[in-house]
């Protein structure tokens, strides 16, 4: 038993304990959001993902591609064939096409200096995962913060008080005024500042804002809601087989027990019991 305990403790330690030391220049930790699809038996919020698909197609895909997904696969989220067709038409594609944007790589490179990354795996491909993508979408300066920057830059001189205000508003972790000033100069020069992007300056201008598009189901179209929905959609796009994966063991378990009870429910309500039963079965 001691061995098993050690083993389990080690496994949890590996997943739970953050081992990383953050370098001084590192970007701030993205705040944790509540994602229903996370957790042991979490499933995608399909309604949110559907709204997110609309945001992705109408806004993100102006520059980005989501090339590992085909429009037709959106039907798995509950879109009808007609809805899929009209979504594809937004980008001048048909339903059997991959979700590539209207902009090609060369045009994008000319416009932004770099090719915007494909978003198919974005929630798996950045540390911080869903929270990071959400933080980026919400990491641009608000009007109040922009005003603060302009106020500071007006007299070209940063007082102690202003430095502190800037540090907390822009989430910059530096006491070096030259460093601050350098950032402010680039900011007022028109570069896109993002609080959570490593190095703070991203080639992407603020993509989403309050009320940018209207949802068919009448859901509130605030920046927070838009970004939450689009991240939910991107999480689905990153691993459409996630629900199958999470329910797989439960199915096996239900099979062993006769398969009558709704497995996911049992698992969710009595995980300890299930775990012990599995141990006994072994």
């Amino acid at each position, binding site marked *: 038993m001691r061995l098993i305990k050690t083993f389990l403790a080690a496994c949890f330690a590996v997943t739970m304990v953050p081992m990383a030391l953050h370098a001084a220049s590192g970007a701030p930790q993205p705040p944790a959001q509540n994602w229903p699809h996370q957790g042991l038996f979490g499933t995608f919020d399909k309604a949110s993902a559907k709204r997110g698909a609309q945001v992705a197609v109408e806004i993100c895909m102006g520059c980005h591609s989501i090339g590992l997904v085909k429009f037709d696969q959106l039907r798995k989220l509950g879109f009808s064939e007609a809805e899929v067709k009209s979504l594809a038409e937004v980008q001048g594609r048909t339903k059997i096409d991959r979700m590539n944007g209207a902009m090609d790589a060369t045009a994008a490179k000319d416009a932004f*200096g*770099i090719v915007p990354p494909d978003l198919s795996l974005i929630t798996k491909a950045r540390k911080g995962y869903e929270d990071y993508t959400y933080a980026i979408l919400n990491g641009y300066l608000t009007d109040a913060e922009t005003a603060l920057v302009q106020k500071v830059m007006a007299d070209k001189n940063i007082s102690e008080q202003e430095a502190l205000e800037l540090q907390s508003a822009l989430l910059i972790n530096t006491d070096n005024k030259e460093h601050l000033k350098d950032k402010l100069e*680039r900011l007022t020069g028109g570069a896109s500042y993002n609080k959570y992007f*490593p*190095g703070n*300056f991203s*080639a992407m201008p603020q993509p989403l804002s309050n009320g940018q598009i209207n949802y068919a189901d009448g859901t509130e179209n605030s920046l927070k809601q838009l970004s939450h929905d689009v991240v939910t959609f991107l999480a689905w796009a990153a691993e459409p087989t996630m629900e199958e994966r999470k329910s797989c063991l439960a199915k096996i378990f239900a099979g062993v027990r006769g398969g009558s009870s709704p497995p996911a429910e049992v698992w969710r309500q009595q995980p300890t019991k299930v775990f012990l039963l599995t141990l006994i079965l072994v």
Partner: protein
Amino acid sequence: MAIEAEENRRDFLILATSAFGVAGVAAAAWPFIRSWSPSADVLAQATTEVDISTVQEGQMITVPWQGKPVFILHRTAEMIASAQKGDKETLPDPAQDADRVKKPEYLVLLAVCTHLGCVPQPVGTGNYGGFLCPCHGSHYDTSGRIRQGPAPKNLEVPHYEFKDATNLVIGKAMA
């Protein structure tokens, strides 16, 4: 006598056969080993030859070399002076301008930012008249040395030779 001679003869035969066998195996292995060396099509990309006669003073061109972008800058007198002035400053990655060029007029750089590998912008950008990396704001001077920003090292100078007055060969030719 006869048996001894026989044994010597047998020893020799065993030795000769073994030696021949080892040499044979080694010779047979050679083609297999060589098959791992860069193939003909890869070798063809080892060097890039550039005609620099058309690059005016103050201009730069970007050429691909082994799949990476290389800047060739024809420096003006001011650029050279500014680079040499930098020799005296305290640099994050100290290097003399003279060691970074073969002819002072031509600066050849691997255009890959040493921070995160973005491609810096053409000459005349950034605070030191050199190259600004757009991704995270690293400023390089007219010698390609890092002066400001997060990059840890100077822009790398690839191996290159002046073939003649107007032709420059980047990279080492491989046999």
